[in-house]
């Protein structure tokens, strides 16, 4: 057994942790423990007197989510309530898809939730299905993560035995590719096709799984929903800035003493997020925010920035799915960027010309600049490639890559010039910092 902070159910105070209240390192919070911690699922069928905050009507639940100010935690930061409302309003029976396919190598917050507190996510799926009137619900993860699939099947079976979920939740494994977790990829896969992005419109909320209006939410977003439905929008807004309230799971990595997932109050400055992770283990050069579709920020610029979508965007960064990676001065940022871009290039679905041809050209030029030096022309080559790639793909993959590269050329402009004229710096021989999956761990198919 493990030590649990809250011994019996009670409306928790406004403080942290919220999602991670029952989480300890090697322990999965089972269904009964989950209910003890947070209270029963507030659905009419399950607990008629629960859910006082939204009076047991689907439209009321959507209203509460809208008032809570919850934003999507998968990267885009779109208002969760508005998305629900458009799915609920669309013609036809809705489908709910929970996206737990965490493709980003620099993130592990979705895996943490799914392996330690799966019932928060499963509650969220059931509540979302209730809110939008869905009669079909999927939880999608990477199929090559067998242990995760098994533990989720077990959690779903526990709930089925007790009849917790009116709409059964189907656990689906999709190919473990970077772009397979893009929402149109997931929908194409659930419709029997390859897990590759599709051309839009139609968007999922209009026509998704089998042509039906489909709500696709990140699993962390749904876990927040599970708590908002229990404790209300006022509780949710009790922490964090009014524009983007609540808490968020942040994966902190790189040159910090205790890398890992931390639940923060929205708007916590990056400096404090690093402190939570045990502080810096080396002198800081720069911070990568928002993961591989995010941006590099110079250390002094990044340090005071509050972690919200608008604050990070204002300084040229991105919140993404909540990643903070500290780059020490001993690392070569160009080598790190080149390795990541090479990985992302291999992960392209190869459907759109500019991505299929532009990304390899970009990756080659970056590798040359980082590891060989550029004879004074490679930076120009890279800068000329970017506009040929941007905004020309069906999905955000090519634009995510160019955003990362642009931020590298800005933040490390002096380094780039030095590499271009004199050859690689000492930092290129340092062990890689940013995680990229090893070839043997990767999946190469799409079906």
């Amino acid at each position, binding site marked *: 057994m493990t030590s649990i902070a809250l011994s019996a159910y009670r409306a928790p105070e406004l403080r942290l942790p919220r999602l991670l209240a029952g989480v300890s390192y090697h322990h999965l919070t089972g269904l009964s423990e989950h209910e003890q911690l947070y209270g029963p699922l507030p659905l009419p069928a399950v607990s008629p007197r629960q859910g006082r905050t939204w009076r047991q009507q689907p439209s009321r639940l959507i209203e509460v989510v809208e008032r809570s100010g919850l934003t999507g935690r998968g990267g885009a930061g779109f208002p969760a309530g508005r998305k629900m409302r458009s799915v609920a309003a669309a013609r036809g029976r809705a489908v709910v898809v929970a996206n737990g396919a965490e493709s980003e190598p620099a993130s592990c917050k979705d895996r943490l939730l799914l392996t330690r507190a799966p019932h928060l996510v499963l509650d969220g799926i059931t509540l979302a299905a209730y809110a939008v009137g869905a009669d079909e619900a999927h939880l999608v993860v990477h199929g090559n993560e067998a242990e995760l699939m098994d533990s989720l099947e077990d959690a779903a079976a526990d709930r089925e035995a007790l009849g917790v979920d009116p709409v059964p939740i189907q656990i689906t494994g999709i190919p473990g590719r970077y772009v397979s977790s893009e929402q149109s990829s997931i929908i194409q896969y659930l419709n029997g096709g390859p897990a590759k*992005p*599709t*051309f839009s419109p139609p968007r999922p909320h209009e026509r998704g799984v089998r042509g039906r209006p489909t709500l696709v939410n990140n699993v962390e977003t749904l876990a927040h929903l599970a708590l908002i439905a229990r404790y209300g929008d006022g509780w949710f807004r009790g922490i964090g800035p009014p524009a983007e309230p609540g808490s968020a799971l942040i994966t902190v990595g790189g040159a910090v003493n205790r890398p890992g997932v931390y639940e923060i109050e929205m708007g916590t400055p990056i400096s404090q997020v690093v402190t939570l992770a045990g502080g810096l283990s080396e002198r800081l050069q720069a911070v990568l925010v928002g993961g591989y579709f995010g941006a590099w920020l110079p250390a002094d610029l990044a340090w005071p920035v509050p972690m919200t979508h608008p604050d990070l965007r204002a300084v040229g960064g991105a919140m993404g799915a909540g990643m903070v990676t500290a780059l020490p001065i001993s690392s070569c940022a160009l080598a790190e960027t080149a390795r990541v871009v090479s990985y992302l290039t291999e992960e392209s679905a190869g*459907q*759109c*010309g*500019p*991505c*299929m*041809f*532009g990304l390899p050209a970009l990756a080659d030029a970056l590798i040359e600049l980082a590891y060989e030096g550029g004879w004074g022309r490679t930076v120009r080559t890279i800068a000329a490639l970017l506009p*040929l790639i941007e905004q*020309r*793909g*069906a999905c955000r993959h090519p634009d995510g890559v160019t955003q990362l590269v642009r931020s590298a050329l800005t933040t490390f402009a002096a380094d780039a010039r030095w590499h271009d004229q004199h050859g690689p710096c000492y930092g290129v021989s340092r062990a890689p910092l940013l995680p990229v999956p090893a070839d043997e761990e990767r999946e190469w198919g799409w079906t």
Partner: protein
Amino acid sequence: MAGMRAAGPDVSYRLRVNPIACTGHGVCAELLPEVIELDPWGYPILLSPDVPASVLDHARRAVDACPTLALLMEDVTGPQG
């Protein structure tokens, strides 16, 4: 010019490329060089998504000629139009 008849001040058309369908034949750039250029790999770059009235007929021909039906022209007439 023939193109003038359809595109008054309240009617406008916008081009889009379906990048998944497009395989870089380049027919569109040949038929509509005013609006479409090819990138180094032979895929179309729209210089401006809006179709000037003067080349509307050429744009229609380019849309019809695309072997993969990847060039789309959408009516973006405003609500007052």
